[in-house]
């Protein structure tokens, strides 16, 4: 799902057709800005979660040092994992926050503007339905992953610095701290993971956007109940659960395709610290599920664009 490349034809179009003044207009850019004005939870929620996480980390530092804890580990690999643990937990919680914010944002994105009738105002301006829907889709697919990444990196740095400060105050050695190098590795894995998740979840967000543009009320029920109904139907009629496993794969299947949880020798990897060597982008890119998902996402978004043309305030 490549937002910028999809937006290109329109940008070129407006430059060709319009007088020079027009090039100063950036409908996609301003449409994304307005989503951020309206939905401040996009950045406030990750920041709040990061704040709570940091508080917990600091309180933990007062009590016991996980650096000391790590020194007790039997070998270097275990030590690495123990040191990485709070950082990994912080990243996971922020990933989950970003996912949840994306879900609830998408469920409301095309519903809210019909509910408060402001769709009539937005439609009075020369912004196409395509631009509007792409701007809304880019929030869970591009903006939220970037926000989560930025907030996590900042949180990790603050954790590292405060850990060091506490060690120095206690008269300990900074040498026992987690070193910046594996942290940098962790951030790279995080960026990779965010990209993979966004691509894998694209049809999910696109479905939610479509429902939010279609349903008159109870968007959450319309989004979820059909899947529940199909699962139950399959279970009762055929006593199978293929549909359920399909859904499960769509939710968490990216991990198994994008990462290897075993070293080449078959040694299991602790998920708290995944070395760069364990990333399998080639395998991920050659997973049919990825491409099927992206095609479905594009189809759902195209339907959402068409739907917005016909939709009136609720």
């Amino acid at each position, binding site marked *: 799902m490549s937002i910028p490349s999809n937006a290109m034809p329109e940008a070129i179009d407006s430059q060709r057709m319009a007088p020079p003044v027009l090039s100063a*207009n950036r409908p996609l850019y301003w449409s994304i800005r307005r989503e951020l*004005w*309206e939905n401040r939870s996009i950045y406030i929620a990750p920041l709040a979660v990061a704040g709570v996480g940091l508080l917990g980390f600091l309180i933990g530092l007062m009590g016991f040092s996980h650096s000391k804890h790590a020194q007790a580990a039997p070998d270097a690999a275990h030590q690495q994992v123990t040191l990485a643990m709070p950082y990994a937990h912080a990243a996971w919680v922020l990933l989950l926050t970003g996912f949840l914010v994306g879900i609830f944002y998408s469920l409301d994105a095309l519903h809210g503007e019909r509910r408060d009738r402001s*769709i009539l105002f937005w*439609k009075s301006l020369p912004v196409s339905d395509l631009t509007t829907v792409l701007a809304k889709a880019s929030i869970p697919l591009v903006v939220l992953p970037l926000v989560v990444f930025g907030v996590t990196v900042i949180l990790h740095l603050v954790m590292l610095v405060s850990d060091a400060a506490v060690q120095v105050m206690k008269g300990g050695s900074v040498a026992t701290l987690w070193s910046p190098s594996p942290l940098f590795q962790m951030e790279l894995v995080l960026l990779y993971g965010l990209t993979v998740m966004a691509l894998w979840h694209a049809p999910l967000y696109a479905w939610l956007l479509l429902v939010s543009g279609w349903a008159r009320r109870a968007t959450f029920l319309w989004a979820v109940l059909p899947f529940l109904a199909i699962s139950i139907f399959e279970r009762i009629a055929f006593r199978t659960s293929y549909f359920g496993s399909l859904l499960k794969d769509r939710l968490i299947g990216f991990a198994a395709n994008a990462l290897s949880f075993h070293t080449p020798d078959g040694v299991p990897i602790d998920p708290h610290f995944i070395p760069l060597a364990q990333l399998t982008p080639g395998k991920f890119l050659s997973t049919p599920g990825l491409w099927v998902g992206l095609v479905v996402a594009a189809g759902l978004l195209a339907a959402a664009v068409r739907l917005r043309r016909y939709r*009136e305030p609720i």
Partner: protein
Amino acid sequence: MPSIEARGLRKAFGTTIALDGVDLRVEEGRILGLIGPNGAGKTTALNAILGLTQYQGELKVLGRDPWTERERLMRDVCFVADVAVLPRWIRVSQALDYVAGVHPRFDRAKAEGFLAKTNIGSASKVRELSKGMVAQLHLALVMAIDARLLVLDEPTLGLDILYRKQFYDSLLNDYFDRSRTIVVTTHQVEEIQDVLTDVMFINRGRIVLQCSMEEFESRYLEVMVHPEQVAAARALKPIHERQVLGRSILLFDRVDRQQLATLGEVRTPSIADLFVAVLGNQSSATQGAAR
């Protein structure tokens, strides 16, 4: 080139026919009042003109097909659909930023000039503004757009008389010139009588009257008839008759003014009175809906 030209415009919602073969032509530089009772098809007609709804028949707005060329059309067309469609969460400064960012013909300094004359602060959110102020803000945004066609659908609904007066005054003084076209619907017909250059009555999806205000003033005359001359007046076939404080008021179409002057006091009727007369003459029309 006319601003709006429609031939045989039709639109049905299920079995309800909202527009039943409307023919319409609005020249550039006119201010047209579209008057009709609730459910007459006013908003449907405007939605078709704005490319918000599909229709059957021929329709060209500024020479374009509003349904298929909507995005392009919206650079030259502006509309205020009802009051209170500005999102409640937006700040005044954000609204200015956004419109400036997406509209090639928006003059931000002009909008700020209009706002400076009001009590609206640029940091205020729409939800903090009174209904009248929201209408002022919307009008400031719209008037700063150099559009060729402005469509107003009940722009002053729910506003008090001061704001309504102000709204039309600034529209006329600060915005309108002969190169722009304005189409307005409202139930407060009396207030816009002096503003309009053209008037159109619509009922049950059909246009029942269409004329310029000059024609309106020369064609229609209202006479408060002396009691002893009521019979003589009725012989001239008034299109409508009503009683006010025991006096008969008769409305005539195309009857000589000199002749009428002998019967009583002659004056130009209000659009509202003509509306009641025209719709009252339609067998099943609901009387008084103009108010």
